[in-house]
């Protein structure tokens, strides 16, 4: 078990224990204010778990909306509706064996019966869909995520800065093959001004070269950046080329075979392979909200407006005549 696995496990268990403790506090505490603050622990732990799963936008939205809005509302309601006479024991519950047994049965059903059911798809919890093979003539191309095994769908997105491209070349074409070059070109529609132009360059370059590099970097805002990666052909049929150091952008890639006699033209497999590198979920969610979910978004905003007006009206103080 590497240290990073340990850290991930540790973080998960810390937040999971906090969430469960908070949930038990909400369910079983006799003081309603204590259960409100136990709910705070649950909400923060849930946000931490979202952040652990790299859904950063959702973690921030959870804290902003749930803790900053709903929990504050709940605490206000608790403080406005409790009678001054009984401060501590203001939250009785009627436990009864029935409810407890029902809930235990529900938990049993969820965890023991429903959870291990087989899921559709080749592999149970595959991160990403199955690898898609794209063919062009006698060659076959696949794109994988950084571990080289889980597939990266065409047009799919990955969170890491590395992608692996697998190129399968049949035996009869492999004579005299020196290198396989993959060129990944950033899709200009999604290029952002990057921090790369401002970082300190390699210290081993002479100052003149550094200045030239800076000049070039400074004027390439509109030009799509293209990166080339090469790999020597492996003994097996499929050669894996690792594309490293990718920025946060959308990439289209093509392959070139360099042999002893010369270079082949740039082979672009059918289906126009591309992938997107994301650092967080903000941009995908925004794109989804603008395109497939636009109607739902607008409808929810209308609903929120109605809820706002309705709540303000319902909670008004009646002026007693």
């Amino acid at each position, binding site marked *: 078990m590497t240290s990073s696995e340990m850290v991930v496990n540790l973080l998960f268990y810390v937040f999971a224990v906090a969430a469960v403790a908070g949930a038990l506090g909400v369910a079983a505490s006799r003081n309603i204010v204590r259960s409100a603050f136990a709910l705070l622990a649950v909400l923060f732990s849930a946000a931490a778990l979202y952040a652990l799963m790299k859904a950063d936008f959702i973690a921030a939205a959870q804290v902003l909306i749930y803790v900053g809005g709903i929990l504050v509302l709940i605490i206000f309601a608790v403080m406005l509706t409790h009678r001054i006479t009984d401060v501590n024991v203001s939250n009785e519950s009627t436990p009864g064996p029935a409810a407890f047994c029902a809930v235990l049965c529900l938990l049993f059903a969820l965890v023991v019966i429903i959870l291990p059911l087989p899921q559709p798809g080749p592999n149970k919890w595959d991160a990403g869909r199955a690898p898609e093979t794209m063919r062009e003539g006698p060659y076959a191309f696949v794109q994988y995520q950084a571990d080289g095994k889980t597939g990266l769908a065409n047009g799919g997105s990955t969170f890491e800065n590395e992608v692996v491209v697998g190129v399968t070349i049949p035996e009869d074409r492999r004579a005299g093959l020196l290198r396989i070059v993959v060129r990944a070109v950033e899709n200009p529609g999604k290029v952002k001004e990057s921090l790369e132009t401002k970082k*300190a360059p390699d210290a081993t370059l002479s100052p003149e070269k550094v200045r030239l590099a800076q000049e070039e970097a400074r004027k390439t805002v509109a030009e799509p950046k293209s990166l080339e990666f090469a790999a020597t052909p492996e003994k097996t049929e499929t050669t894996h080329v690792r594309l490293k150091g990718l920025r946060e952008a959308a990439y289209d890639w093509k392959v070139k075979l360099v042999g002893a006699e010369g270079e082949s033209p740039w082979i672009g497999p059918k289906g126009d392979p591309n992938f997107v590198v994301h650092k967080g979920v903000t941009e995908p969610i925004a794109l989804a909200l603008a395109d497939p979910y636009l109607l739902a978004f607008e409808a929810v905003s209308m609903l929120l407006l109605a809820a706002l007006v309705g709540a303000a009206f319902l909670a008004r103080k009646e002026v007693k005549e």
Partner: protein
Amino acid sequence: MNFEPLKLWEDVRNGGTFVAFLGILVVGGALINLIAVYAGLSTLIERKIAAHMQARVGPYRVGPHGILQWLADALKLMIKEDIIAKDTDHFLFRLSPYVVFAGSFACWVALPFAPGWSPASFNIGILYLLAVSSAVVIGILMAGWASGSKWALFGAMRSAAQIVSYEVPIGLTLLSMLLIYGTLDMQEICYAQEKGFLWGVFKDTNGGLWSWGINRFPPFTILAFLIYYIAALAETNRTPFDIPEAESELVAGYHTEYSGMRFSFFFLAEYANMFVVSAIATTFFLGGWNPPVPTIPSYLYLIVGAAVGGGFGYALKRRGFDAFVGSMIGGGIGVLAAVIHLKGGAPGDHFLDSDSPAIVKFAGGAFWFSAKIFALLFVMMWLRWTLPRYRVDQLMDLCWKKLTPLAFLNLLAIGFLTMTPQWWARISALFGGGGPG
């Protein structure tokens, strides 16, 4: 014998994640110390500024001209008796100062102190800041409730209602600025203010005062800055919005029952919060760590800095202030400018160039960032001793009936202005790309 656990420990110690964890602890520790020192000095600065504005001297005895007064205050708070009333909810009473402080402290890790230097780099920088400030509200409610006193509870509820209400204009103005920048990342926002001109006319001029956020679409971004600043004053419970902690109104609001070290946590949290909202204002509106005039050579910075500092010192000395304070301010500014910008002295050398050593970048960026923040803090403290207090209903009226509609209209205007180049480009493309008509 099983040596597996030993190998595991070796692996842990050598793993990159472990080192990252240690790095987090070190940075966190340094940041907490920085906050503590800053908050302590901030109390001293506030008292001195208040005093000089009221034509008196302020703390004078501890240390030369009262410079060490903040240490005395800190020591006093630490050795005070810790009184916990009988009627309180003990667990929540003990917990709430830490929750409030944690909310403010967590905001410090996302601030862009210098180019490439931020305690943690976030994709969702500003959203994270807004989210974590909600912990402060919960902590305040916790403190008010756990104090077991009716007045503390009222103070806490008023304070929480005020903070939550004023988050709306803050969010709206920051949203209108985000339309201009197009990114949530605080460092990228500072980078975006390196170049540009008013109304997006020239995109490549070399930065300076006119490419700051506040000058992007002048009438509207200036309005956005003012709305943000007023709302930030209310967010941190500063005068004129300090009804929750005004001495004459509610004794001390939600922290009435706290004494000694616990009270100092609330104090620390308030000053840390002031720094955070000023830092957000600086990042979005005042250019972050960008200097006001970027392309003059560094020796000119030295000369200008010494001149400005010396002039300040001389002017203050002539008007009858303490000669010591005046010359200290003057000399300090000059020395700082010299230290930061003396990078070789070749013409055109600028500390933001890619080939300047990292320490120069850090010092320069941090200097300008802090200078702008302290200017905003000075204005906050100035307002405290100048303006009378708002009543609670006037405060809410200002937020919901004046600032929020203005912020909405501002958002509309800035959104329109941001989209205009694209629409113009499409219209001229429609007409054959040959210009209007």
